[in-house]
């Protein structure tokens, strides 16, 4: 199957904040214009726009694509918005990829935006209505229930302690201290801080969880002939994959994310990766909760089932470890404006692979990275492999 080669050539983001004064459009514009500036392109150079944004309810308006479109550079252009819940950010990059790989467009601006602070009294008001309205909602659930049940299943199956898992939160929040756009970077946080934080729904405690956040991220994608003209350091999309498990969370394996593995296998096959542990140099798995980073690293086949915590304890996933994981600081540290958070991971790989990550730069000139997001009804995974 003939596909055109696609590169990421520019990236930009807003600061991630708790409450933005900017409208969603204004946030989107800031990220999009920074991405264009980073590769010295203008809107005239862009053929099409992909928008990524999670539920309408966060921003408190319907037809969110249309509302955001002018801030995303969509005026007078073909525009599309994809939506797979938390998986949206990486999926929007995948959509950008197939817009170009198909030969339909040469350049695409991908913009992901979220303004969760609009949602009052708390975005849980939107999240609780993702549950089945007849069998589950009468029980008064909230989103943490799923995570607490899944985390407990994961811990129990592999004999992990809260302390093993808290190390992820500490690593990511410390990494985020080096990110200029981070909301919750903290160079001094300790495991004890995490273990002593408020219990929300056992075993989930406050510092196991990423924060409610406002922010936007954008990337510019281009076909090979354009990419080589606009930059000497294109970052190639080598593989993409996505996969859905059953929407019934009572009918899937909560301790191992098979759908992540399926999405990863699809992306690795496209990228010609046969030994991911040797061929992937840097990983940005989705980490809205600390145990999710471990869960996803295993689904991405980067560690054996139940062994990612041990690798974390050994320092393998530190920025200077053998496999740096979430050197950005991830959702736990940089913040979690849903769709924008996952596109931030793609942007982080772009900066890392170009050697432009500043204080966050991982050593050893990494050549290939994987970013992954997760969401929908907690049963979707989206994966992208980038390389130089």
């Amino acid at each position, binding site marked *: 199957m003939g596909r055109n080669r696609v590169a990421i050539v520019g990236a930009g983001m807003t600061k991630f904040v708790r409450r*933005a*004064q*900017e*409208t969603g*459009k*204004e946030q989107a*514009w800031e990220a*999009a*214009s920074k991405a*264009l500036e980073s590769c010295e392109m*203008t*809107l*005239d150079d862009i053929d099409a726009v992909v928008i990524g944004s999670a539920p309408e*309810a966060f*921003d*408190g*308006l319907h037809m969110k694509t249309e509302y955001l479109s*002018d*801030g995303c*550079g969509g*005026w*007078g252009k073909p525009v599309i918005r994809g939506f797979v819940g938390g998986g949206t950010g990486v999926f929007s990059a995948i959509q950008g990829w197939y817009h170009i790989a198909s030969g339909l467009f040469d350049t695409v601006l991908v913009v992901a935006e979220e303004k969760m*602070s*609009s*949602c*009052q*009294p708390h975005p849980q*008001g*939107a999240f*609780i*209505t993702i549950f089945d*309205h*007849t069998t589950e*909602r*009468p029980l008064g659930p909230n989103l943490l229930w799923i995570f607490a049940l899944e985390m407990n299943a994961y811990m129990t199956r592999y004999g992990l302690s809260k302390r093993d898992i808290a190390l992820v939160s500490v690593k990511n929040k410390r990494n985020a201290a080096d990110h200029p756009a981070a909301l919750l970077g903290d160079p001094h946080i300790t495991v004890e801080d995490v273990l002593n934080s408020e219990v929300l729904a056992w075993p989930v405690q406050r510092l196991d969880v990423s924060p409610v956040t406002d922010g936007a991220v954008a990337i510019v994608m281009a076909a090979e002939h354009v990419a080589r003209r606009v930059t000497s350091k294109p970052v190639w999309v080598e593989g993409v994959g996505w996969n859905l498990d059953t929407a019934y969370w009572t009918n899937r394996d909560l301790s191992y994310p098979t759908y992540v593995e399926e999405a990863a296998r699809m992306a690795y096959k496209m990228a010609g990766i046969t030994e991911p542990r040797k061929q992937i140099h840097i990983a940005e798995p989705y980490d809205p909760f600390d145990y999710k980073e471990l869960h996803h690293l295993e689904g991405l086949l980067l560690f054996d089932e139940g062994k990612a915590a041990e690798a974390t304890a050994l320092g393998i996933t530190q920025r200077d470890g053998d496999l740096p994981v979430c050197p950005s600081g991830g959702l736990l540290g940089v913040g979690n404006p849903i769709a924008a958070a996952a596109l931030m991971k793609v942007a982080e790989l772009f900066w890392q692979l170009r050697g432009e990550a500043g204080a966050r730069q991982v050593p050893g000139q990494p050549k290939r990275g994987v970013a992954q997001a997760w969401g929908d009804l907690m049963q979707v995974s989206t994966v992208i492999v980038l390389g130089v």
Partner: protein
Amino acid sequence: MSLLERVIHPDQTKLWYGEIPIQSRYTVGIAGERFFREIKENGRFWGTRCPSCDLIYVPPRLYCERCFAHLEEWVEVPTTGRVHTFTVVHLDLDGNLLPEPQVLAFVQLDGTDGGLVHYLGEVDPDEVCIGMCVEAVFKDAGERRGSITDILYFRPI
């Protein structure tokens, strides 16, 4: 399922009522902040100008949607304009007859490339026409809250 099998009486099927418990808190944004402060404090309209596209946006925008320039040139614009198009509303959202028909118009503000959708007042609905010259009527200064309803309506001049 055939047409005859559709639910005719909802109370004969198992159902329940619920809601999505959300309230939204909207910010007016960076450009909107200044626009609404000017309305509240001075009863004036301001816009932003894009020098490269030669457009004046009202309400003002932080960026030009066409060229993506950051718009930093603020200009005061008239509170007068022309009716670009209008409608006369007779029923409310529940289908009840309004006590008085309500005239809703898109007013293109003079000297700008934008305008506002708003009510027309002090006018017989039968006399409204496209192209009619109108001006904004504001609430008294003490009653203005920095909202689009600080403008009561536009009236003919």
